[in-house]
């Protein structure tokens, strides 16, 4: 029984970590550009597949570094070529655009790498279980959580201490003023989109090592990420972080008691938040709502 609980709690932590990575990327883009990136889950898949292609040449560790950067580059190009054109229009257009992109990227992945799952090899060190008793917890699981913690800490440090990061946060609050102060807002948004994509790509590499690759691998993460943002409060990255952890752990704990309801509990949390505190845990009234 103890092992079952431990198993589910670590699972919950890992799933929560993925929700957090996805949701933070989505949230970054949403806050600065007012765009819901429906293709975010497909960016994740793309990150995973690129790691799959790169691994034979530069190894898992190389792919872990390079693949997210390539995903970021991809996001940057997409933003420059297409999404940038619809900022001035009704938000419905940016949603439809990313929606269409999601279809295209998913189908492209299926076309290139096939509809079936592909295994991704991870270094032997990471594939070992922690101890023989805790055979269900591999080092890879610990490693994933550690990487996510480092990435999230890095993101918050970047937003707090670097010039670009500060500008991104300022732009979230008042983009017109940031523009008037002489910041190239267009480039700032592109860069920000790339950072969001980077997080998706990183999540993709990590997920590929755990569950393997398939063209829809990001789809199941998209909706919980939306819910993490809604629960945490739109406009607040810290809120998104909290929201992701909350629903991840809640889902895991429910699995212990009542496995069938583990997904339902996420939706229940969202409804409770919408009724009791519509702006979300840390959201501010009036921001983007």
């Amino acid at each position, binding site marked *: 029984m103890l092992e079952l609980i431990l198993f589910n709690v670590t699972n919950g932590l890992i799933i929560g970590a993925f929700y957090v990575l996805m949701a933070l990327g989505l949230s970054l883009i949403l806050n600065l550009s007012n765009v819901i990136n429906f293709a975010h889950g497909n960016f994740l898949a793309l990150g995973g597949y690129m790691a799959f292609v790169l691994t034979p040449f530069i190894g898992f560790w190389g792919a872990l570094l390079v693949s997210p950067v390539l995903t970021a580059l991809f996001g940057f190009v997409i933003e420059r070529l297409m999404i940038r054109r619809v900022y001035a229009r*009704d938000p419905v257009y940016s949603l439809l655009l990313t929606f269409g992109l999601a*279809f295209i990227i998913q189908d492209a992945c299926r076309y290139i790498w096939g509809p079936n799952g592909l295994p991704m090899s991870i270094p032997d060190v990471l594939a070992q279980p922690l101890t023989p008793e805790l055979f269900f917890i591999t080092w890879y699981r610990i490693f994933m959580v550690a990487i996510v913690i480092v990435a999230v800490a890095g993101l918050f440090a970047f937003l707090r201490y670097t010039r670009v990061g500060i500008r991104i946060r300022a732009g979230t609050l008042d983009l017109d003023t940031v523009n008037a102060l002489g910041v190239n807002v267009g480039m700032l948004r592109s860069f920000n989109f790339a950072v969001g994509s980077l997080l998706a790509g990183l999540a993709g590499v990590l997920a590929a090592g755990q569950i393997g690759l398939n063209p829809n691998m990001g789809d199941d993460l998209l909706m919980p990420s939306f819910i993490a*943002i809604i629960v945490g409060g739109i406009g607040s990255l810290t809120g998104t972080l909290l929201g992701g952890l909350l629903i991840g752990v809640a889902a895991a704990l429910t699995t212990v008691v009542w496995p069938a309801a583990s997904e339902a509990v996420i939706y229940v949390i969202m409804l409770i938040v919408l009724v009791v505190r519509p702006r979300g845990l840390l959201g501010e009234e009036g921001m983007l709502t």
Partner: protein
Amino acid sequence: MSATTADAVRHAPARPWLTAAIIWALLLTVPVWLPMLGGYTALAGRVLVLGLAAMSFNLLLGFTGVMSFGHAAYFGLGAYGAGLTLKYLAASTPLAMLMGVLLGGVAGTLFGLLIVRRRGVYFAMVTVAFGQIAFYIAYSWNDLTGGYDGLRGFNRAPLDFGFATIDIADNGTAFYYFLLAVFAVATGLQGLLLASPFGRTLLAIRENERRARFLGIPIERHIWMSFSISCCFTALAGALYALLNNFADPMGLHYSLSGEIVIMAVMGGMRAFWGPLVGATLFVVAQDYISSMTVNWMSFVGLIFVLVVLFFPRGLLGMLQRMGGR
């Protein structure tokens, strides 16, 4: 945003009756000309049903200025409502439609209460997430809904008026005209609604919410009512869809259908009353054609989204209106 809106208002349809007359003439004669073009009547039924869904959705997007991205939920609830009624309650087509509308409408009305204060992308995001709840329930509640495989084992029943019976169960043409009749009543009601003071108020909210609020209009209540009405009509379309296929599946609740409903409204012209129907026609025919040609139809559907957004944002009727208005 404001520039396009002003444009659309200035170029209001020059001859609204002409558009309506052409559309009705085409719709009434479908069983005559469609087979000649190599189409089949069931395809026209799909167009009508999804056209009704897109027009109902457009009450929100085009005429209230609120962006729901979760309308597949109400469409699917309508379908399941109708299917479950036929399967477990009674073999009555009108009752099935009523139950479908009730299920989708009540869900939309209740949920609407929670979100009327939200706007823009946040509204879209919350509606998507809520829509997935319906998908999740239909997907997981295996015993009742058939889960992943969808709800099967029901058939639409012939219409029985007491003095006469119309066989819509087996006669495809009769069923098409039944769909058309329901479509006519529903769109007629929508037209009346938009022409009423209530509909005009919705336009005022779309054009300038703050000014409407200063005029003393209770914005939240109007948006809530508009949302509920839109959900009821969308659920009606969903119920018809279940009757059309004798089948209800969870993909009819999935958010990708919500996106398709939105693109139909946009590609036909969301500021035009008939725009979503035109968009649904283009989309359904294109999808039918592409999916018969290639397994990679998803890419092409995605491409339609991208091209419409980047190059034809006003939609077909919007462009025609603009050209006619100059």
